């Protein structure tokens, strides 16, 4: 078996991360452009891509402004000199701007775009870390800058946010049409479709992108760890994982949401630092994503009724193949190869699982619709140039006018609730509340405008009914929120 040291140089981290990055931001929109009509490409490819690019490019300025970052050289000139003196820094092609964060939380991170890169460190990190530990962490961050991780993960993350946002918005738009106002009854009767299926379809695509982005995040950490370890040595580098002592209890939100984080765990990072071969354990994750994309792509060109059969066949074939391989190995008593074979068969099986997941999801909703029907029904205006233009305008209007107007409305609405601390004390909690409680309101607004836009007379009774439903939902959300807050308080009391 190869030693960890000799294998380290051979892991093509950059090739892997660049390939996954390209598959998210290039291949996926390209697939939408080729395999689906223009509307779908515009809604789920072009708009998330453009908006994602825009928010990604704007993010550094916003971070700097709202986190009140200042030049590090003004506060800690010696630290800047220490960073510049690092061997890893001297090899860096595009030199970053050093920033200081006035916060007691320990934070060190690299961020930025293709054009401009930044390196930020907080007061908490400077105050609570040893000089050698700081050097190791900075070397790790320099590795992110060298590998282009700031854009390789930053851009797909923003693309992902917008992809989900578009799916949610379209789902909300379709909701009143689908369930309350059977405006397109005749169309539905002809094709047996439901308006909600398109956003549902794209949720699964979003899920694939989410997994791929998570994989990117994990790989970039392993890669940066490996680089920093080569620069400072294993014994020195592992010091960064040592705990610090604090008298405060961990907050509930932090410990609960840690498991949802994209970073690999400390334990796994330590494992891979000491035995890089274990990185192959990540292969099944990648294969599941590939399977999901393959399943999704092939379903678009296949008769959906046969998808279930395909799912079963793919699982069965791969299952038989994997067990046959295992059988051969076991018979030949090559026990030492068992681990590798297990990972390989796991990877193949995971790819089949991904494909099957996509197939089964599509089969489930194929009972509600037919492929051509959903596309035609998407904007319910047929499939010609004029309707393409019309739907583009509709979506643009939705993003540029309705959403800002709704956000403004939300702010006016929720200000008294925030003031009276009804929505919880943290900004995260308030934003979450607004999203959960007021999203049905988006449907109402959009429905109202769409009715008028399309020249269809809407029924006042049904309109008020929806307002009533939304109002009840807001009240229910407030009650749930208060119950959660109560539960959290009780939990803290018990902990104390």
């Amino acid at each position, binding site marked *: 078996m190869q030693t960890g040291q000799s294998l380290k140089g051979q892991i093509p981290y950059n090739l892997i991360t660049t390939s996954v990055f390209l598959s998210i931001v290039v291949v996926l929109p390209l697939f939408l452009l080729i395999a689906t009509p223009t509307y779908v490409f515009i809604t789920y490819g072009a708009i998330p891509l453009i908006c994602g690019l825009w928010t990604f490019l704007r993010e550094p300025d916003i971070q700097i402004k709202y986190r009140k970052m200042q030049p590090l050289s003004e506060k800690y000139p010696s630290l800047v000199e220490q960073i510049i003196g690092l061997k890893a820094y001297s090899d860096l092609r595009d030199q970053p701007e050093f920033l200081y964060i006035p916060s007691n*939380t*320990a*934070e*060190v*991170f*690299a*961020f930025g775009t293709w054009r401009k890169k930044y390196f930020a460190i907080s007061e908490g*990190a400077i105050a*609570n*870390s040893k000089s050698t*530990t700081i050097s190791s*962490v900075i070397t*790790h*961050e320099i590795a*992110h800058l060298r590998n282009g*991780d*700031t854009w390789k*993960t*930053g851009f797909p*993350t923003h693309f992902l946010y917008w992809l989900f946002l578009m799916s949610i918005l379209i789902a909300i738009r379709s909701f009143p049409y689908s369930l309350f106002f059977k405006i397109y009854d005749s169309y539905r009767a002809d094709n047996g479709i439901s308006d909600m299926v398109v956003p549902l379809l794209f949720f699964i695509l979003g899920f694939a992108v989410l997994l791929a982005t998570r994989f990117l*995040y994990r790989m970039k*950490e392993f890669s940066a760890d490996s680089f920093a370890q080569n620069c400072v040595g*294993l*014994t020195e580098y*592992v*010091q*960064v*994982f*040592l*705990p*610090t*002592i*604090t*008298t*405060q*209890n*961990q907050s509930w939100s932090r*410990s*609960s949401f*840690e*498991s949802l*984080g*994209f*970073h*690999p*765990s*400390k*334990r796994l990072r*330590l*494992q891979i630092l*000491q*035995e890089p071969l274990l990185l192959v354990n990540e292969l099944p994750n990648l294969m599941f994503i590939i399977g999901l994309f393959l399943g999704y792509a092939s379903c678009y060109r296949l008769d959906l009724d046969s998808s279930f059969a395909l799912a079963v066949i793919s699982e069965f074939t791969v299952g038989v193949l994997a067990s046959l391989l295992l059988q051969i190995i076991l018979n030949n008593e090559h026990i030492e190869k068992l681990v590798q074979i297990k990972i390989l068969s796991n990877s193949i099986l995971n790819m089949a699982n991904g494909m099957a997941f996509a197939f089964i999801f599509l089969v489930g909703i194929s009972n509600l619709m037919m492929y051509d029907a959903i596309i035609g029904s998407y904007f319910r205006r047929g499939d010609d140039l004029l309707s393409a233009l019309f739907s583009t305008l509709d979506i643009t209007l939705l993003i540029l006018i309705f959403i800002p107007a709704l956000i403004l409305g939300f702010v006016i609405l929720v200000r008294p609730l925030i003031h009276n601390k009804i929505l919880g004390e943290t900004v995260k909690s308030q934003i979450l509340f607004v999203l959960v409680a007021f999203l049905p309101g988006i449907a109402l607004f959009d429905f109202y405008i769409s009715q008028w836009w399309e020249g269809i007379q809407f029924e006042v009774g049904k309109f008020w009914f929806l307002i009533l439903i939304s109002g009840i939902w807001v009240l229910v959300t407030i009650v749930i929120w208060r119950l959660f807050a109560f539960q959290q308080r009780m939990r803290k009391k018990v902990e104390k």
Partner: protein
Amino acid sequence: MNSQSLLNDPSNVESIKRICNQVLSDIAPEELILVDQVVDIFVEASDPNGNLKVVDSSYTDTPLGFGSNGELYTTIIVPIIINTLSKILGTFSDVSLKQAIDIIKDGRDKKDLKIEIVINEIRQEITIKASNSRVTKKKSKIIADKVLRIIANELSK
């Protein structure tokens, strides 16, 4: 005996390091590289009343930053071992300590039910402390048994 008086003696600290290394070599061998340093951190952090301060992660897990996702087993196990050791040494006298070690090593001792009850309480305490969102109850029970057995082996030397 409280943790502070236990940790004042360097030979006890060495015993704790040995116990931790043995426990973690089975549970999380990848963390062995850090065990001695984590024990030292706890020794420095214990206050005069013998309380061990809570250990937190070093860096916040921001998407682009140097994330510290999850807790090391070492930071869970080390305080458990220190507390358990100080409790065993503080509860049992020389004679009963020998019996306690036998009970831990060989199982039930019909002669002294009281000692067995105390050991079961200690075992229960370790199980509760070891279980969190990532360590299941079943696993924490295994950890508790392992910790007690290794401590008993160390004390019998």
